[in-house]
């Protein structure tokens, strides 16, 4: 199970990095989103599945660790805000430059 999780996270990270290196700004943003989700999975793998009983509930069995779940939840909420802002900036770029090719959005280079 651990190996499977590690492989899944690794594959997602790889796909994300590949997408991120594309010239198209929309694709590279999607790559960023995929990497971010891979890291969320990694946080989840740090211990969310180790127990069988929920924390703060009077049940028998090993308690699961509530902290990784809290971390992932916070990270998801923050990245949702972050990605909506990135998408808004992308919209701004596409209305200003009428392109999604990062090589053509290069006013600052000169």
């Amino acid at each position, binding site marked *: 199970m651990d190996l499977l999780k590690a492989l899944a996270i690794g594959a997602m990270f790889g796909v994300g990095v590949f997408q991120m290196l594309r010239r198209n700004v929309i694709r590279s943003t999607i790559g*960023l989103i995929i990497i971010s989700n891979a*890291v969320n999975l990694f946080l989840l793998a*740090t*211990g969310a599945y180790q127990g069988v009983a929920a924390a703060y509930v009077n049940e028998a069995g090993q308690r699961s660790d509530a902290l990784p779940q809290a*971390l992932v939840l*916070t990270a998801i909420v923050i990245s949702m805000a*972050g990605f909506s*802002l*990135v998408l808004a900036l992308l919209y701004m770029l596409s209305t200003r430059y009428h392109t999604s090719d990062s090589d053509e959005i*290069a006013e600052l280079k000169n």
Partner: protein
Amino acid sequence: MNAHVVLLPVLIPLTGAAVGLLVWRWPRVQRAWSFGALLTSFAAAIALLWAAWTRGPVVFQLGGWAAPFGISLVGDLLGATMALMAQGVLVTGMIYALGCRDKAITYPAFFPLFLTLTAGLTGTFLTGDVFNLFVFAELLVSSGAILTAIADDRAGAEAAYKYFFISLFAAIFLLSAVGGLYVSYGTLNMADLAVRIAADPSPPLLAMAMMLMFVFFMVKSAVVPFHFWQPDFHAAAPTPVSAMLSSVVVKLGVYGFLRMTTLLFVPQAATLRGLLVVLGVVGVLFGGLAALGTHNAKRMLAYSTLAQIGFILVGIGWGTPIALAAAIVLTVNHSLIKAAMLMLAGAVASRAPIKSAAFANITGLGKSLPGMGALFLLGGLALAGIPPTNGFIGKLALFRGGVLAAEYPALAAIGVASIITVVYVVAAFERIWWVPPAEGVKAKPGGDRLLAPALLIGLCLLLGLWAEPLLRLASDVAVWLGDPGLYIAAVLGG
């Protein structure tokens, strides 16, 4: 005074921003309210530093959860000093914004965003929890990105996109580091982590987590291999915002390196310090040479930030108490000087026929602006480290630290870089104030108000002529940093 004082510099700007958004229909009310909130929070930051300096660190456990389980806010001497520096410069930034002619200022969320920027930056300096650091850093970068995207400059959106993309990616690095540390040690509290890392530095993920965190702080401070977004971003932002970004916001990385080498990763500190000296030397030389070759006053100052951060990193890298004290003096001084210089460059640009800080556009404009010339010259002297300004004090302390640590190759490099600083500052002054203007080019009568840069330059002179308080504070901080046990005892209770 009770421990709540450490909450105030974070909570007041956050509440202020929320209320500020509610009154967006009444711009005057919003401005007055936001400025009042920032001033109150500045007063709280002064009280916090005073409490930390006279009575020891102020620690507050959020929600009443005991230390390693809950989230602690720690107002220790380093955090409180950085928070006060940040809020002081942010107050002048808001004064500049209030007297600024940019259209960006009329954006309904401008002042609330300024306050969330303050809250995010102060929060990163005061938090005692690694994950909380990530949350505050995200607040900081999203406010900074929006404030840049609304710039009058058309390229603002491009710069904001670049910055935000890189920052989100850097945040992912920090998040992976958090995961690695949690797997290895089962805690995220910085004091608790420090105890456990010192007790057992063997987990395989530790080195990975350490380097990921190091890279995060490198991106935040625009240290050389990760600097590429910084000049674009700082040159395109509206003047009051770019003055803040290039002065106090880049200090987040500096703060992180100080914490990493003196608290979190003390057993590995020698490796990190060696790396910091190399990166610092590369930074001072690269930043200085790049600043020489620019065609835009704001861009020149942004590259100069790379070099000045390099000086600070070299100080942290030497790691002796006197070098650490020098790094802290340089950190405070650079924030004041760079904010003032960027405001002056922006104020000149606001009086130019076309609003741009390109040298081709502002050459000779200074002829009718002698007062600004005097301020710019004083700021330039401070940047280059020439007496009677505070820049001299910081450089002197750094050189003394280098001689005592017998680090001659690095000393030679930063000596050369100091000379380069003089060259580009004087070249910029000459182009704006000495060269005769092109035919028919004259400065417009109205423009951004000069109160804020005048305040900052006055403070630079004051700290140059009466340097003892800052030097004493910095050496106290260095002594405090010398013993991580003090921080740990303050947070965990011991």
